[in-house]
């Protein structure tokens, strides 16, 4: 069942085509990675999901409702963390929680207090006294405390230290186990690799990949580095090899196809050391965006 469906979404700001015919869907219970460089259109898509912006063409269905026409109803079901949480500087953490509780129901208060403790957030502090990381924690608390069926997170771990990032990832995994669905926009590729079931990659407003992390990696092959005791065998005739670099005793290259002919060649030589790694998302990104 598609919980969120983006259909042929386009958005223009004057002459700037921020989104161009973007379509993808998210299943219930998925953590869905939304990747792309700055200015790719990630935040614009998220702002349309949240009803802040109206699409120029196309639509987004969430829980079968239109994100533009049914924005208020949908926000009862969506927890949102913006890329740069901007909260009221003169309000305390508890005042933010109380305001959200007044709107969404007082039952969220207990959950908010629990989250505040997990994230080590002082309720009596005013937002202007909080560091960027702590403001991010408050935004995360406010999004999760309502226990929504869908979380929309726009670079939620920006500004968090590694320990808190790990705590947050754990919260997301627990949330997923309880049946929650997450749209996670991120620049942090290791975060995406760790958490996401599926990913889409967007560039210049256009969708360029809609896949899983595993499939994306397998499509982008392996990096091989071998160190030989004596003579280096000839790899240049093997199909699918790219970026071949040879020194006196070492050879390095990328291969997208089957590893079998390479292993066969290696087995006939005196290999001292061998390193085979899957392409990281960083490598894949570099390749996609170059």
């Amino acid at each position, binding site marked *: 069942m598609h919980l969120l469906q983006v259909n042929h979404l386009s958005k223009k700001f004057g002459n700037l085509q921020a989104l161009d015919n973007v379509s993808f869907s998210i299943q219930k219970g998925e953590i869905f990675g939304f990747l792309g460089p700055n200015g790719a259109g990630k935040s614009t898509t998220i702002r349309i999901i949240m009803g802040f912006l109206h699409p120029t063409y196309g639509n987004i269905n969430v829980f079968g409702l239109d994100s533009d026409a049914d924005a208020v109803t949908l926000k*009862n079901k969506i927890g949102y963390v913006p890329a740069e949480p901007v909260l009221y500087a003169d309000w305390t953490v508890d005042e933010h929680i109380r305001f959200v509780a*007044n709107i969404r129901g007082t039952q969220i208060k207990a959950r908010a207090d629990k989250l505040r403790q997990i994230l080590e957030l002082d309720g009596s502090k005013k937002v202007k006294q909080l560091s960027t990381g702590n403001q991010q924690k408050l935004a995360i608390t406010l999004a999760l405390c309502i226990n929504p069926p869908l979380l929309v997170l726009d670079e939620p771990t920006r500004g968090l230290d590694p320990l808190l990032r790990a705590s947050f990832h754990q919260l997301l995994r627990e949330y997923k186990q309880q049946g929650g669905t997450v749209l996670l926009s991120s620049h942090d590729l290791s975060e995406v690799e760790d958490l996401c079931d599926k990913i889409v990659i967007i560039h210049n407003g256009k969708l360029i990949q809609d896949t899983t992390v595993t499939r994306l990696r397998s499509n982008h092959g392996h990096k091989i580095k071998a160190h030989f005791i004596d003579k280096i065998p000839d790899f240049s005739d093997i199909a699918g090899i790219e970026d071949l670099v040879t020194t006196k005793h070492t050879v390095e290259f990328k291969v997208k196809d089957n590893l079998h002919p390479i292993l066969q060649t290696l087995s006939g030589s005196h290999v001292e050391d061998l390193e085979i790694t899957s392409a990281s998302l960083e490598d894949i990104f570099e390749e996609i965006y170059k």
Partner: protein
Amino acid sequence: MIFCSLVKQALRAKRALWATYSAIGLGFLFLYIAVFPSIQSQSVDYNKIFASLPKGLMIALNISNETPTLMGYLSSKHFGLIWLFMIALVVIAYGGFVVAKEVETRTMGFLLAQPISRIKLYLARFSAGAIGLAVFVVFSEAVVWPLARVYNYTIDVKGVLLVGLAGYLFGLSIMGLSFMFSAMSSSAARVSAWSGLVMLAMYAIYIASSLMSDLDNLKYLSLFHYIAPGDIITNDSIAMSSIVTFIVFSVVTAAIGALIFQKRQVQV
């Protein structure tokens, strides 16, 4: 419940604004009441000066050359000009906060992420503004009644209430205007500039139409034409046309603002 929370939030966010202007308004009243005995004793001399001024200017500045009562004196010296500009300033400052300032500081994102319709948010803010304006009118005008009693001046309560009502309706109409500008802008400073320019233009039209008989009909374009505290005290009533004008102006401008806010793109 949600509406009340939003009203409370808007009142809390701008409590310093309302409190400051109310305190200044109250301070002005103390000042005028303190100097009133000397004004009363010199009224004959003042009237000679006023008699030399053009009649149109006297009307424009809400000055009468009768022997002053406290309320008549306040109406000509304070409620007819300074108080009206204070009302305009406070509601324009408030209007800037309603949408524009929240978009400018990006806190609008926090509000719009909640299950609140934009119209409800807008109306809650208008209601909060109406309450804040009422507080300002009480402390800057209506409080003249208990103050007069403290200083043993006789005062007509009905006159106090009518001037307060007229000032309140005048304030609501400017609030509608500033809400409209706020709904279409992402800068509170721009809202103040636009609203201020419109108010200044209206005042210039009002003065020009009072001084030049050829331009007399232009006075209907100015909100200042519909509020004359001196006339309210003299006639002991507010013209129905003034009440209708203020209400219609307020509702129309605020409604246009609501529609713009409902449709606008919010880049937060």
